[in-house]
């Protein structure tokens, strides 16, 4: 079952005396919801995602998943990274089964489960292959199977498709939300690609920078699978782009009042 993610008054700074990277983040992501965090590079969206994964503890506030405060990583809230980071001394199947083995599942039981997952991500015929012989897209599919194997309630995606070619990226952008919907997993993806956000999410959260805040959001009520050429898709893209530009302008004016005078003039 998907989980509720509560972001409660989160602020964060990397150095005690340094500026805030994140400030006043307050939001709630519902069970099974597919959510995208969008913003410029350096606005703190990956930092926020790392907090949801328990890989980073906020300076102030907290992340709660199903009312349980996130203080360390867990197989129940799993993260996929930009790099697949597979272990080259293991086969595809061994890589995918790693989380299960860490959880104490017997190799026989893990094997049965992984076969099904590799089927789902389209890699059943490569299960004994060495991971270094796979393409970038196939490696991300193994990473996806590895993340799904532990039956997570939350799947966190840190721009995992950004290094892939356009065709593979498009395919995975379509497949991953479908899998999450099928398995009722709450998904949060971080991206700076507006099309990707609309393709994958039910709700897009827009972040400003210096410090990172959630300043706006957009509901995406489109049927699945989503087509880029669809009129509604393009309308939402324009709307999101406008919101994004508005956010940027507000953010710049806030950080430098002299610019707001120029804009007003």
């Amino acid at each position: 079952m998907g989980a509720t993610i509560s972001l409660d008054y989160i602020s964060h700074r990397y150095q005690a005396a340094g500026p805030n990277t994140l400030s006043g983040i307050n939001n709630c992501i519902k069970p099974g919801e597919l959510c995208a965090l969008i913003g410029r590079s350096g606005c703190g969206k990956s930092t926020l995602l790392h907090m949801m994964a328990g890989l980073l503890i906020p300076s102030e506030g907290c992340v709660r998943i199903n009312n349980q405060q996130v203080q360390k990583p867990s197989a129940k809230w799993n993260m996929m990274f930009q790099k697949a980071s597979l272990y080259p001394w293991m086969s595809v199947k061994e890589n995918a089964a790693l989380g299960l083995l860490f959880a104490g599942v017997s190799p026989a039981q893990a094997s049965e489960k992984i076969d099904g997952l590799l089927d789902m991500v389209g890699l059943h015929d490569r299960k004994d292959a060495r991971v270094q012989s796979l393409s970038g897209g196939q490696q991300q599919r193994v990473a996806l199977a590895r993340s799904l194997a532990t039956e997570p309630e939350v799947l966190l995606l840190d721009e995992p498709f950004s290094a892939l070619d356009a065709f593979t990226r498009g395919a995975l952008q379509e497949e991953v939300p479908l899998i999450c919907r099928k398995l009722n997993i709450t998904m949060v993806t971080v991206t700076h690609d507006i099309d990707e956000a609309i393709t994958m999410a039910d709700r897009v959260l827009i972040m400003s920078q210096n410090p990172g805040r959630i300043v706006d959001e957009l509901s995406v009520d489109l049927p699945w699978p989503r087509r880029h050429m669809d009129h509604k898709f393009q309308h939402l893209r324009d709307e999101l782009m406008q919101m994004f530009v508005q956010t940027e302008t507000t953010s710049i004016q806030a950080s430098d009042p002299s610019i707001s005078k120029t804009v007003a003039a």
Partner: protein
Amino acid sequence: MTTASASLERNRANMPPLMGGVLWVANQLKYPVLGCLCLLVLWWFGGYLIRNDPDLSAFSAFAPGPTFSALYALILSGELVQTITSSLYRILIGLLWGVAIGVPVGVLIGYVGTAMKIANVPFQILRMISPLAWMPIAVLAFASWDAAIIFLIVMAAVWPIMFSTAHGVRKIDPNWFKVARNLGATGPQMLSRIILPAIMMDVVAGIRLAVGVAWVVLVPAEYLGVTSGLGYAINDARDTLSYDTLAAIVLVIGVIGYCLDWLCGLLVKRFNWHLED
């Protein structure tokens, strides 16, 4: 693949398996055999010069003929096997101690930056001391000659294993740790499933270097009071003026050293997880 070996591969496909196998082995061995033959010719020529020099003719037993005769006699008497077994036993125990000390310490100084900063200078100083320089201390510190020799081998073997292990740990992709933590790995699981397999190749490469150094140190170390081993056999042959036996033992030391290195090379290949073409 060269044109010659490519054509050989094509021919092999049309041959019966046994014939193809023989041809493959012959192709693999042709250069090493040629190199050994060159060495043999040089050795024979040196022996020839010594035999014909009146000042040196007493040492003519160093030539290939007498050496191989002595080697044959050593094999037949069973003496050689006993000698080799003693030396290999000391090397094995010394290496085991080297691994038991070198790998954990290597993991520690590779993983914990501060530990490396503290240990680097003293370890580099200790590493630069010739293992044989510890000989007087070893004789004083250990009750038996065997233990003293094994200590010298440990002092030779531990540094390459330790530094190679530390190097392996330092070059582990930090994302591997992050992913494993994210998947819920505990400390022992991180060590057994991530760190050790990732560094195994470097550990074995360190062992290979250690075997080379330890094998070189073994012979002078066995000059200490023991009555077995290849070093002792050389010393004994020199004292009894059995130069043919001495040359035979030298030959055996070289061949066994090569075989040990070859075995380590196979292990390095076994644990190498880099994709090779």
